[in-house]
């Protein structure tokens, strides 16, 4: 049984109790506990089930590397699946449930898989479930999926109640990791005057050293930590941040840090997580090292734990994992655990040291404490199912013949240490294999490089492969100096404090225990505890040709679990190397990818949710539209009124009403979203002649002309009315979506091609509200407002004038997209609402109505006007649309002209724009294709045209459409067929695309 010790616990405030629940059970811990330590203190070792075989799982680690202790944390809108108990700080009211079992943690039906495990080796699913074919979808896959996943999925209706944010910061030196190495590196760089940010993922500074012991300048390591912190806190150029994890290192010194602000104390105002987007000149990774498990049979049984974790629980949390702990190791560090436990009065029946020669000074110390030390020995097998009951001992050199059984309730294992090289590696840092220490460590010659090609990451301390406290501090000080120098600070020579720790005997790599373990043992020797990958699986992969470490990973899923193989990767690739008979460095590692440990989606999205998920662009009349209950459609980031339904009206009814009213008398449209670009300069005319297919330089001041713009690839990209304001000034209207795009397009050509042309462009789209006043009574209403002459003679069709209406300065364009008498009035945006209100007021006698985008679309279609995005789709050239009249024959060049000379563009078989009328007057379906005879070489039905836009016209009382049809303009009157997706076939006659007021009499009045 794990339990709380009477004394100890550096992190605990025993005076404060904290209440929480686990699987519904009410429990208490102390302030300072993690969920893991609190559960262990209550004797709750088993906390979950493994992925594949549903094996019982208990904690193996005490920190971020934990693969097993994952819980569903919280509930409802605050449910967080897969939360690591070892990094979850306990708070009052915490609720957690265990994962991946049914019906209960103790009794899990899925655990039968463990009995079939022999039939479920790595990759079994590639070899099975194929026959009969239909079974995959209906039997096999549903079954596999049912057993998938670990944590509980939040309910569909869940809405996260917390907020998140980002923070941009720029620092000279970022130090990641607040152990002694990180503290020392920060001190050195900070003293040199560099601007330093030091981050630590846990709530505690000092890392392993206070637990592991040793002295710094003659004093306990913990005192060094306190002193370092005090000094750092006093420095103006240093910022410290705990609960802040270095999540990823990216190109050009970009680093993501994940700050968990309130996970440990939910409730108060403020964000839950903050994602720091750091730009660092230099990054010091002082991320420490992670202990490796040993691979022996039954190493996954709850109660088998990393030796350092056993020590951490005892020292930091005052928790013993068992009463009798067997320590098994291949290095000296684990002796510290035995010594610590013994010092707390717990039993250590034996230390099993796989090294024939055993350990150094620590081993002597252990022996002196009366601990039995067995060298050259190994664990053949762990006894027990849901909890360790004992171990069988054998010779490490043998095949597992049991020499002895030792009763125990915990096993503390250590296979050596692996530097945390993740952040070093994220952005391309390379590793080197250190044979003496049996570890991959950063290869300082192949560091990640930044924008100037400079190395920008410096590893420090154990993260750099230095294990002894003295070396760690010296290396960290050197890293601090190097970082400070690299950012232009002037550090003094690295002076590291003097540290001392007992001498240690060298590690001897042990990748399998015992060395000659037979297949039955290897099938029970776990590498990846969460994903149930065993030694035998990796060996199988090698045998089947999955020789690349990347293949082996993907075939076995080794290292793909939520811990990303922090414990399993090195052991796995060592097994693979052995199976392939090649040295470990030749096998290499898999790729380290961000994040270091998983980070919340909420933090990644930051503030961008709800109201500020994306910008909504608002016209100066948006409030009014909202007040009217308009039905909006998103157009780019705008939301334009689609129609303004009244009462019980359907959208279609509203649209019809708006059209009828406009055509009959008076309608108004908020056209503010149309792009408005001022193009000015001596070369403005010449420039616009290149941009538009038609001639703009001949336009007279005071007049307007409709123009087309193509991409250099020849396709129609935008259209709009151009007004010439002065000799050297034009105002170009673009489509709603076009304003920014066309502005950028103009700047691009001016800056990168014709940079000697004298033209300036200004985007004044939002300076103006633009209101279209449309209908036979349009003039009357303007005249009623008074202020300027809007008569036919003074302001004819396609002219514009500056003036005042109702006392408000404005510019009036007589242009029409509806075919009606129409004025578009541009007014300073800050006055747009005032003008709108006045127009409504004086239009009341004409029963004025606002109309939305759909009415606009229908009216333009009735007139046969094309719409960018409907008649065009990025593959259409103006010639397809019968717009040859708008393509100047006189110009030598315009953007897109050369492209339009290519063979496919001049192909007479290109589909051309026509009007379409169904024979029965119904509306053609949107997007329908006209069929032709036969099928093509790929068996697809031949087609000869398609609908580009289609509406019910309230004006004509029938369906009208436009479409692109093969030889269309030559086939007037012909009836072609459009099969619908509803099973019906629609017959439509090819007609002129202008359905209404062909001679333009209405707009010209």
């Amino acid at each position, binding site marked *: 049984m794990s339990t709380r010790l009477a004394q100890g616990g550096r992190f605990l405030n025993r005076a404060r109790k904290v209440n929480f629940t686990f699987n519904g059970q009410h429990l208490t811990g102390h302030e300072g506990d993690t969920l893991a330590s609190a559960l262990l203190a209550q004797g709750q070792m088993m906390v979950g089930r493994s992925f594949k075989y549903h094996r019982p799982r208990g904690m193996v680690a005490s920190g971020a590397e934990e693969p097993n202790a994952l819980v569903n944390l919280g509930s409802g809108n605050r449910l967080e699946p897969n939360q690591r108990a070892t990094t979850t700080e306990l708070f009052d009211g915490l609720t957690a449930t265990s994962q991946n079992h049914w019906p209960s943690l103790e009794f899990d039906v899925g655990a039968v898989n463990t009995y079939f495990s022999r039939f479920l080796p790595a990759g079994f699913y590639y070899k099975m479930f194929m026959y009969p074919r239909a079974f995959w979808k209906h039997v096999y896959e549903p079954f596999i999926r049912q057993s998938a996943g670990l944590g509980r999925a939040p309910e569909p209706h869940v809405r996260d109640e917390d907020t998140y944010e980002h923070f941009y910061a720029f620092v000279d030196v970022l130090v990641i990791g607040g152990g002694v190495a990180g503290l020392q590196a920060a001190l050195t760089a900070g003293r040199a005057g560099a601007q330093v940010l030091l981050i630590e993922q846990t709530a505690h500074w000092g890392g392993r050293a206070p637990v592991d012991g040793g002295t710094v300048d003659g004093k306990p390591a913990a005192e060094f930590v306190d002193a370092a912190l005090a000094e750092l806190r006093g420095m103006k150029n240093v910022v410290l941040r705990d609960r802040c994890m270095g999540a990823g290192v990216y190109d050009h010194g970009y680093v993501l840090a994940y700050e968990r602000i309130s996970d440990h104390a939910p409730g108060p105002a403020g964000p839950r997580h903050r994602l720091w987007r750091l730009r660092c000149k230099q990054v010091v990774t002082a991320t420490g090292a992670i202990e490796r498990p040993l691979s022996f049979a039954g190493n996954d049984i709850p109660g088998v734990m990393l030796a350092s974790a056993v020590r951490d629980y005892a020292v930091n949390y005052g928790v013993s994992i068992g009463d009798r702990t067997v320590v098994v190791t291949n290095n000296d560090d684990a002796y510290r655990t035995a010594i610590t436990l013994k010092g707390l009065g717990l039993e250590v029946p034996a230390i099993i040291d796989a090294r024939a020669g055993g350990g150094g000074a620590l081993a002597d110390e252990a022996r002196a404490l009366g601990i039995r030390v067995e060298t050259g020995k190994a664990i053949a097998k762990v006894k027990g199912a849901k909890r360790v009951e004992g171990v069988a001992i054998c010779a490490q050199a043998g095949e597992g013949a049991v020499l002895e059984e030792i009763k125990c309730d915990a096993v503390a294992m250590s296979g050596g240490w692996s530097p945390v090289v993740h952040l070093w590696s994220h952005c391309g840092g390379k590793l080197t294999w250190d044979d003496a220490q049996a570890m991959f460590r950063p290869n300082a010659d192949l560091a990640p490089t930044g924008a100037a090609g400079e190395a920008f990451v410096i590893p420090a301390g154990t993260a750099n492969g230095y294990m002894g406290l003295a070396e760690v501090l010296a290396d960290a000080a050197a890293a601090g100096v190097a970082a400070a120098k690299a950012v232009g600070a002037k550090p003094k020579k690295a002076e590291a404090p003097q540290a001392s720790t007992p001498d240690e005997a060298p590690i001897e790599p042990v990748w399998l225990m015992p060395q000659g373990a037979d297949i039955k043992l290897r099938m029970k020797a776990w590498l990846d505890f969460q994903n149930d990958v065993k030694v035998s699986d990796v060996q199988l992969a090698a045998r089947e040709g999955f020789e690349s470490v990347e293949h082996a990973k993907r075939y076995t899923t080794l290292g793909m679990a939520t811990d990303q193989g922090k414990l399993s990767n090195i052991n796995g690739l060592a097994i693979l190397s052995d199976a392939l008979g090649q040295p470990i460095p030749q096998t290499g590692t898999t790729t380290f990818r961000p994040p270091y440990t998983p980070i919340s989606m909420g933090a990644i999205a930051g*503030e961008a949710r709800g109201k500020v998920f994306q910008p909504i662009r608002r016209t100066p009349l948006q409030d009014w539209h909202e007040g009217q209950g308009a039905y909006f459609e998103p157009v780019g980031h705008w939301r334009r009124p689609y129609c303004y339904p009244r009462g019980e009206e359907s959208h279609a009814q509203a649209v019809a009403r708006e059209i009828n009213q406009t055509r009959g008398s008076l309608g108004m449209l908020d056209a503010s979203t149309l792009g408005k670009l001022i193009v000015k300069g001596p070369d403005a005319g010449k420039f616009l002649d290149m941009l538009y297919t038609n001639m703009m330089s001949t336009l007279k001041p005071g007049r307007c002309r409709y123009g087309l713009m193509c991409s250099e690839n020849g396709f129609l990209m935008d259209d709009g009315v151009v007004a010439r304001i002065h000799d050297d000034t034009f105002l170009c209207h673009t489509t709603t979506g076009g304003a920014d795009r066309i502005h950028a397009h103009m700047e691009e050509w001016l800056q990168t091609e014709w940079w000697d042309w004298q033209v300036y462009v200004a985007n004044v789209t939002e300076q*103006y509200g633009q209101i279209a006043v449309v209908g036979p009574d349009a003039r009357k209403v303007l005249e009623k407002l008074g202020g300027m002459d809007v008569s036919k003679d003074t302001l004819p069709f396609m002219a514009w004038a500056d003036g005042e209406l109702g006392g408000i300065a404005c510019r009036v364009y007589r242009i029409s997209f509806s075919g009606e008498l129409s004025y578009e009035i541009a007014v300073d945006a800050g006055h747009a609402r005032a003008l709108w209100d006045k127009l409504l007021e004086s239009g009341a006698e004409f029963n004025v109505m606002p109309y939305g985008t759909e009415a606009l679309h229908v009216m333009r279609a009735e007139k046969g006007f094309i719409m960018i995005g409907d008649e065009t789709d990025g593959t259409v050239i103006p010639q397809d649309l019968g717009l040859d009249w708008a393509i100047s024959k006189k110009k030598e060049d315009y953007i897109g002209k050369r492209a339009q000379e290519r063979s496919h563009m001049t192909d007479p078989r290109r589909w051309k724009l026509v009007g379409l009328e169904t024979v029965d007057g119904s509306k053609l379906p949107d997007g329908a294709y006209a069929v032709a005879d036969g099928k093509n070489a790929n068996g697809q039905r031949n087609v000869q045209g398609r609908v580009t836009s289609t509406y019910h016209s309230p004006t004509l009382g029938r369906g009208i459409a436009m479409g692109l049809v093969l030889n269309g303009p030559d086939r007037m009157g012909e009836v072609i067929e459009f099969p619908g997706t509803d099973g019906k076939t629609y017959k439509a006659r090819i007609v002129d695309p202008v359905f209404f007021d062909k001679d333009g009499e209405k707009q010209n009045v």
Partner: protein
Amino acid sequence: MSEPVSAVKNAVFSGIVRVEDCGPQGMITLRSDASNAKLKQAVKVVIGADLPPVRGISANGDRAVAWMSPDEWLILLPYAEARAAEAELRKALAGTHHLAETVSDARAFFRVTGDAARVREVLAKLVPVDLHPARFGTGEMRRTRMAQVAAAIWLESEGEARVICFRSVGAYVFDLLSAAAANGSEVAFFDA
């Protein structure tokens, strides 16, 4: 003429800093070659301020000129005076290639005030800009991206920042700044 209405009329938010709409503000976009001999003089006469250096903003009372790009400046002045100043600039620059357009209504304009460090950190949540006091101070105009839109920021003084964005996204930017200023969201990065 009616009273002009700003994009987010009278909006105010108070959290770790105060965010408020500055109301109608006169603005003119001025484009010209920087070497245009008449330019310096025209700006001096009409605005009373010197042309600022690259990325600078130079003020004269309630008027200011900000560098926007090598051939573009933004002129700030009282709303009611913009059109007249525009005309004056055009006159002063007549005969040279230039552009002067009033854009007062095309922008939204906010003031962020409070503790100096808080003001910086509220902005730093939204813009990819180094706002450390050692590297960003008054007199600098910074055009940048604010969350998902373009914006320009400067410090009027320590503890008072100004933000300009396009009018249509004024509400968005106000909401962003308010979210960034939410109570309990202090960062304490610039405090040291």
